[in-house]
């Protein structure tokens, strides 16, 4: 216990300030949010306010995208302070965050997870693979990118996207 207290005091607050206004950094993500249409955005604002519960599904990623999503939740980036939470069940989720190209084996699981979510629901594609299959485009075992299977409203580009990109894209989506 003393160890914990000592380190807690010595370390202080590590969480980094994130300038929400800097749309410059958001780049492409910002554009795709705009493309999502004002109708959708007003719906999001009305239904979710400033909170978003996300269920993550890996449909064939290499693992680095997951690692960065986890990093976005660490004390330094602290995604939770913006009202974004990762939940354990699709039944609790507002949005589905998908990583990786969709492998044939994951098609059923992906669709079932989506069906299990209550309305209104959104799909977000995270990483270049989810976006356009990345290096796995011509594989015999890939059914396509996420947008070929489910309606995607937000793309977070990168291989893998870094935590800051993930956070800024999600916040821009909520605003």
């Amino acid at each position: 216990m003393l160890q914990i207290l000592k380190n807690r005091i010595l370390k202080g607050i590590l969480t980094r300030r994130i300038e929400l206004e800097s749309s410059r950094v958001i780049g492409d993500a910002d554009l795709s949010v705009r493309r999502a249409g004002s109708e959708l955005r007003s719906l999001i604002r009305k239904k979710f306010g400033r909170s978003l519960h996300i269920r993550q599904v890996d449909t064939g990623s290499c693992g680095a995208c997951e690692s960065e999503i986890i990093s976005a939740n660490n004390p330094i980036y602290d995604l939770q302070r913006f009202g974004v939470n990762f939940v354990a069940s699709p039944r609790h989720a507002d949005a589905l965050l998908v990583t990786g190209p969709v492998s044939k084996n994951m098609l059923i699981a992906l669709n079932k997870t989506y069906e299990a979510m209550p309305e209104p629901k959104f799909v977000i594609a995270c990483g270049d693979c989810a976006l356009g299959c990345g290096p796995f485009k011509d594989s015999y075992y890939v059914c396509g990118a996420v947008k070929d299977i489910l309606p995607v409203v937000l793309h977070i580009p990168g291989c893998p996207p870094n935590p800051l990109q993930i956070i800024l894209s999600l916040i821009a989506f909520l605003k």
Partner: protein
Amino acid sequence: MVCSEIIAGIKNIFGTFEALSVTQAYTDEIHIKVSPGLFKDTCLALHKMLSSSVYMLFASDERRARGIFTINCVFGNLKQGQWIIISIDIPQDEAYFDSLAKTIYSASLFEREIWEMFGIQPKGSPDLRRLRLHNEVWPKGNYPLRKDFQKLQAGDLGDYEFDRVEGDGVFEVPVGPVHAGIIGPGHFRFSVAGEPIINLETRLGFTHRGVEKLFEGQSCIEAIRLAECVSGDASFAHSLAFTQAAEKISGIFIPKQAVYLRAIFLELERMYNHVNDIGGMAVDVGFSFPSAYASVIKEALLKLNDLLTASRYLKKVNTVGGVLKSLDENKKQILLDSLKRIENDFNELVKILYSSVSFMDRIDTTGALRRKTAEGLGVVGLIARASGIPADLREYFSTIYKEARFKIATEESGDVLARLKLRIAEFKESIRLIEVFVGKLADDKEINVNPEFKEGRALGYVEGWRGPVLYWMEIDTAGLIQRCKVVDPSFLNWQGLSYAVLGNIIPDFPLCNKSFDLSYSGGDL
């Protein structure tokens, strides 16, 4: 050992042995070709003689050029820094070979793989269920790694048969493929009698993306980027094993500077993953402060990677002939200073964990994998070392690690605590090694530009943070990849997990799982 000693050794075990050819292909590789009838006995003899499990067993389709398939089995003669590869040619219309699985268990997953990917039957195999091409979505009779596979032909679909555990009060608990956390997909089927797990069957393959087929026809330079995406948290180890194989085939010289830089990056990758796992173990017992603390250290390491190479996961750093990123004086200083700070934080983290009695109590004796089981299954890398098997390719194959007086770390008990201790020891050793390697960096070029590619085949291998990452490569006259067989340590180690959890309760499964921390995508390819 030279070729003649190996042959004499095999003859000692079964007298009438006659090889078709024996060649010392490279200083660290001996290729022995035998007739199909002798395959099983030769493998058994080597298995016994070298006390080596099967590191790789794979097929290759050479029907176009020679009308045959080949089967190759790789054993490690670690003490002498050598790989021994037994191969046979089998005619295309008699596509079968003698199964090894009943006597050498570590061959069994590989045989299932050969059967589903090539349609070559391991005769006498006790289990031919598919690993990756799930019966529910992939019709029978389609073998994607055959060269003439073009489009999926319609055929019968089926179901997967799980092993059934029956008896009074036995429950089955299926979990996955979609799990509660932010994690890859896999299906775990527990059979429990009361609280303890009496059987765990893992069904994987959910992230199968056909990586091996995608390699075929690519040039080596292009294909490095694909190798980096096989398992994202070990991207440097994968790219390194890949480039090593390519360099060996073409006889490309690597500047000393690049050798040290590669070792530095490899150790950096080991560090961020080890600290991540230590934090993960704390999460899985609900001990949140150290897990947050560990994630801060991990972030510091990822940022350091970014600063040194412009990539948090060390992608686009490695290439054939050397590395693309060099460390100038300024960066060297940053690296050494950061390591000092990271080491201090890490020592604090260890103190916090060790001073918590409830944490230690929870991980001690949990998820134990005994040495005998580990040897039988052929598990490799960190998991093997935690169970007392002194196997680390850095110790046996690398001269620069020898120069740096690398000390292999092992533990005896094989439980979660052993795996924690091992990670702590390896983390500290990595810091020391990096400091030594940085001291050796000279003002030399770090890359041999415009390498020329030759035809040939070779094995690339690296001790990544999980264990040995192996790449078997065949390159044709045009410099294009004909076959690339990848073995990530996760592939063999998943079975270790199934045994480690026996007798434990399901709530301890996440803890055991995290202490193994295997890659879904690396195993599924």
